[in-house]
């Protein structure tokens, strides 16, 4: 057990220790200061020239968002086309079929928005071409989109009044050339040397000890699995994701994949601190997010190590904890840790089946996605944190008797309107989506879809409710993990989650970037002793309280009817 604990602690410690210098490096990259990776400049210049983009242009928030949305639309159309015709396109050694239109719609959006909710299995539902040209490509560009969008917020923290917020094209390009490409290369090599396939050959066959012949899917997987974690994407090459022995062969690769997904979200916090030269503020954000992570992680670890009370009642001892749905090579502790990190960070890759997590763990995983700002995805975490920050600044500004201001800029009706809308949206998408699913499940049990609603749920009652809630939450949070056990490859889930994915991605980008643009334009008021400092533990506590209360109030009834009801029933 001690070894397992040390493994978890090491995974976290290494991630944080790497994140601090990486944050410093990111800040220099975003500012355009000289760095070690400047040898990429000719390549970048080539890309700018190719796209007709000026490297030195400074754009306002509207221009940046227009750029971001436009290239996202182009990628969507490309991805949708490839998936729709993958069956007849080359690089399909296993002869997999094309995706149905609703599945292609869902898959294209899902990868476009950095979610990777997979309603198919990589072994049979995609080809090598689409895995590489659609999935892996979108993993790079969606992560870079999130990172660049988050950097567009940074100027609103600086004292200089500015009409512009940065250049999305440049930030986007540099994110790929300076971060994701080199990083993925290193990780892919480690994975490949540990047994993850990196070959274009089709299925292999083995004969088991029993004498059965088994087909084993493989492919050029190592590269995709690297960016899948580094870019907090989470979509697996194989259906079983990082629980699959080829996708995550051993404890070492488990550590590498875990560190890879954590390092950039944490580094982005420090990058903000270095960029605006307010390291204390970065530590406050880090502190708030870390406390949030621990509060979700500790109950999960305790309940997983404790084992399933239903099994205990049968008189069966569970010395290793709850093992159902977990890989023996990782064990319950590393799996519990993974399940929380992957849900708070919006990666959504799994190394155990969340459907088999204990009820309380399920509640914690759901909460992690509902908050979606405890570290959060690359860039997306900061974007989400930003609207919580705005609401907190507003309420606490009033509480100390001063028109609320964030680093010298007044937060007024327009900013509050946008922040409220973004906060409102996640409640609407998750609860509205789940309510719609529950309504269809009850009222139209027998509709003639590929999977009839009556056959959606692997489990009845509370757990079935959690399965639907989890799917909607995962879509809204752009997380991509699934409770599975849900028959989701049919028109209802493909289309409904498709739209939730779109809104859950772009509104939390548009809103915060718009607020940042509005704030950057405002007059800067120097701090006085009446100003509420935001880089203090007190303010950190306030943000934490706002996040917790807002999330709890939005989602308590749903959690009570799903995982909490299950938890209390099992007890």
């Amino acid at each position, binding site marked *: 057990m001690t070894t397992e604990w040390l493994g978890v602690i090491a995974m976290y410690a290494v991630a944080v220790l790497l994140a601090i210098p990486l944050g410093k490096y990111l800040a220099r990259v975003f500012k355009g200061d000289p760095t070690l990776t400047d040898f990429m400049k000719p390549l970048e210049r080539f890309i700018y020239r190719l796209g007709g983009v000026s490297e030195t242009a400074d754009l306002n928030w509207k221009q940046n968002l227009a750029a971001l949305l436009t290239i996202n639309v182009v990628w969507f159309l490309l991805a949708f086309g490839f998936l729709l015709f993958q069956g007849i396109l080359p690089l399909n050694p296993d002869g997999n079929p094309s995706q149905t239109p609703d599945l292609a719609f869902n898959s294209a959006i899902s990868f476009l928005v950095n979610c990777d909710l997979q309603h198919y299995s990589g072994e049979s539902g995609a080809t090598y071409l689409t895995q590489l040209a659609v999935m892996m490509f979108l993993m790079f560009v969606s992560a870079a989109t999130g990172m660049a969008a988050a950097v567009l917020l940074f100027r609103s923290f600086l004292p200089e009044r500015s009409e512009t917020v940065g250049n999305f094209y440049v930030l986007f390009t540099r994110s790929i050339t300076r971060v994701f490409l080199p990083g993925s290369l290193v990780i892919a090599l480690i994975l490949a040397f540990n047994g993850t396939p990196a070959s274009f050959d089709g299925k292999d066959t083995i004969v088991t000890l029993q004498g059965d012949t088994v087909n084993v899917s493989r492919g050029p997987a190592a590269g995709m699995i690297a960016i899948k974690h580094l870019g907090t994407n989470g979509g697996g090459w194989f259906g079983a994701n990082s629980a699959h022995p080829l996708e995550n062969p051993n404890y070492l690769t488990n550590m590498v994949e875990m560190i890879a997904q954590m390092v950039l979200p944490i580094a982005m916090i420090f990058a903000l601190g270095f960029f605006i030269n307010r390291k204390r503020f970065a530590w406050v954000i880090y502190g708030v997010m870390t406390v949030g992570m621990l509060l979700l992680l500790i109950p999960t670890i305790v309940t997983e190590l404790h084992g399933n009370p239903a099994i205990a009642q049968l008189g069966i001892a569970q010395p290793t904890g709850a093992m159902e749905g977990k890989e023996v090579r990782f064990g319950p502790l590393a799996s519990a840790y993974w399940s929380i990190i992957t849900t708070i960070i919006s990666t959504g890759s799994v190394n155990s089946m969340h459907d088999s997590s204990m009820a309380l763990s399920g509640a914690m995983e759901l909460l992690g996605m509902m908050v979606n700002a405890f570290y959060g995805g690359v860039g997306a975490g900061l974007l989400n944190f930003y609207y919580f920050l705005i609401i907190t600044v507003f309420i606490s500004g009033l509480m100390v*008797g001063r028109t609320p201001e964030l680093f010298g800029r007044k937060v007024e009706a327009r900013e509050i309107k946008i922040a409220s809308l973004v906060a409102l949206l996640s409640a609407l998408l998750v609860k509205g989506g789940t309510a719609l699913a529950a309504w269809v499940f009850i009222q139209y049990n027998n509709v003639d879809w590929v999977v009839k609603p009556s056959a959606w749920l692997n489990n009845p009652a509370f757990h079935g*409710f959690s399965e639907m809630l989890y799917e909607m939450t995962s879509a809204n949070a752009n997380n991509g993990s699934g409770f599975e056990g849900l028959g989701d490859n049919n028109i209802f889930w493909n289309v409904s989650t498709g739209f939730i994915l779109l809104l859950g991605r772009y509104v939390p980008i548009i809103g915060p970037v718009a607020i940042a643009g509005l704030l950057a334009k405002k007059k800067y008021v120097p701090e006085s002793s009446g100003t509420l400092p935001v880089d203090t533990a007190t303010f950190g506590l306030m943000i934490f309280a706002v996040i917790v209360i807002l999330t709890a109030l939005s989602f308590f009834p749903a959690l009570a009817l799903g995982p909490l009801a299950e938890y209390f029933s099992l007890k």
Partner: protein
Amino acid sequence: MAKQSSSPALFQRELVGAAIRESFIKLNPTILIKNPVMFTVEIGTFIMILVTLYIAFSGDTSQGSLIYNLTVTFVLLITVLFANFAEAIAEARGKAQAESLRKTRQETPAKVIRPVGEYKLDEVQTISSAQLKKGDVFLCEPGDIIPSDGEIIEGLATIDESAITGESAPVIREAGGDKSSVTGGTKVLSDRIKVKVTTQPGESFLDKMIALVEGASRQKTPNEIALTILLAGFTLIFIIVCVALKPFADYANTSITIAALISLFVCLIPTTIGGLLSAIGIAGMDRALRANVIAKSGRAVETAGDVDTLLLDKTGTITIGNRKATNFYPAPGIKQVDMVRIAALSSLADDTPEGKSIVELSGNEVTRNLNTNGAKLIKFTAETRSSGIDLPTGERIRKGATDSIRNIVERAGNQFPKETETKAQEIAANGGTPLVVALNEEIKGVIELQDIIKPGIAERFDRLRKMGVKTVMVTGDNPLTAKFIAEKAGVDDFIAEAKPEDKMNYIRREQTGGKLVAMMGDGTNDAPALAQADVGVAMNSGTQAAKEAGNMVDLDNDPTKLIEVVEIGKQLLITRGTLTTFSIANDVAKYFAIVPALFVVSIPALQSLNLMRLHSPESAILSAVIFNAIIIPLLIPLALRGVEYKPIGASALLRRNLFIYGFGGLVAPFIGIKLIDLLVGIFV
């Protein structure tokens, strides 16, 4: 200052009666729609009335018993009424305060001067004050009540302004100077003045203020608008929560009654702050009025809470009126008694405050025997910078600034003693003003005049500094004196040898740096700076131009009044912020009361969420809505008085308010709902 009216009982009998009537009138949906939170509660009440009627007529009890539904309907209605009452009582108090001011401007006869014929042989007509128009000129004689606000165009009078300021000592107002304004309702004690009416009837500052307090023309301030948006956002989230609950319940095979769903909704939306929001705003204006400050808009009061820099005139604000003589320093070889005699002689006929203080310092023994009959007075002028007296005995006494007396003395061929010169410099370095006295062009000594810093002023500035407000002293003194006084009084910065445009430039400079600037002023030459400042407080005694330019008028003419205004502005925001926090924190307990109550029948395991161990599902829901309703009247006193502002630094203040209203708001409803449930449990 009208301090006697500053803390009357919150709920006076007659006010409560009027407010209760008003609470029902405000049920009108066209009025209530301005408050989105309470409007949704009214809709909920309306639906519950329909449900109750349906049960009463059909006898169908699938929605719960008639009594239960009737009770829920009643409690919801009470919730709206309580919120209306909060607003109405705030308005009633404001009106009562305004009424007492308005009493001063009841119908009074006005002696209007009408030009007649080509020769302008003016004729005086007596008309009612209500008929006065802008531009009219009226006459006031001793004993007259001034019928309208205006500006003196001719004459000088002593006026009793106690009706407005509560200060019994009469004040002098005269044409032409910076103290040319008179206020309707005040009384002329002596002399005759001609006054020109400066405002249309019904448009005076007081009329505007009354309208603001009464709520008729009350506009929401920017912060209030932003908060309303946030609260509307919360309300929408809870609409989603409650609507989604229906299919969730269907999935869980649970039937939820309409009463339960609406109760949950009403409990969750921020009714506490929603119900008290407008009362807080009105009470803030009311508090300003009680401090005898007439604000032209609510926005001005709120802006005052954000002020970073405060410009204050030295004289009258930091120091008491004028300088006083504190010491006589005879020149070498001159006896103290002789010098004092000469100094006193020179000042006996001098009416200036400095002159009076010299006589005072000389003492009765000296002054008793002095005689200035037949003497010729030399008035102080800006050119000579000295004054004096020529006595019939042939004695020529002069006193004045060092260099001007030096000129006189040296022109007569006499020496200016080195000791006197050193002494004069020493006095100036200590913040005093040296006044050199000469008899027949020979130096007799130097009088030290000192500014007397108001007692307690340093503490007030310290308080401002803790609020984050930088104080700037504006003075005509030389930089040396200014620096000394600035240090002694504890101001952060000063403008010495200030000309009117210096003030203006200082304000502009601060504003370019993003700061909000407040200033107080009274003179016409202050008007541009008052207009430029973010918060300009004009003295009521000041000129019409100054009053027009500022956005507040201080009836007491008290230059430190800004400190109160800043605190009122801060209190306004704090009260809103803390009650919002309280309101939202309350929801946690309400969830723990209602959610288990909704589902416990079909999902017995959820009994574990019933942390308060409430009696039954019905009693849990009733207790939650009852708590939700009665918390509004319980908090009305806090909303009206405002949450106290403590200048302990922003972080400490946040910690304090977060603990009291955040943590308190989390815990209080658990206790409150449990207690109500114990009571309700007896009946259900």
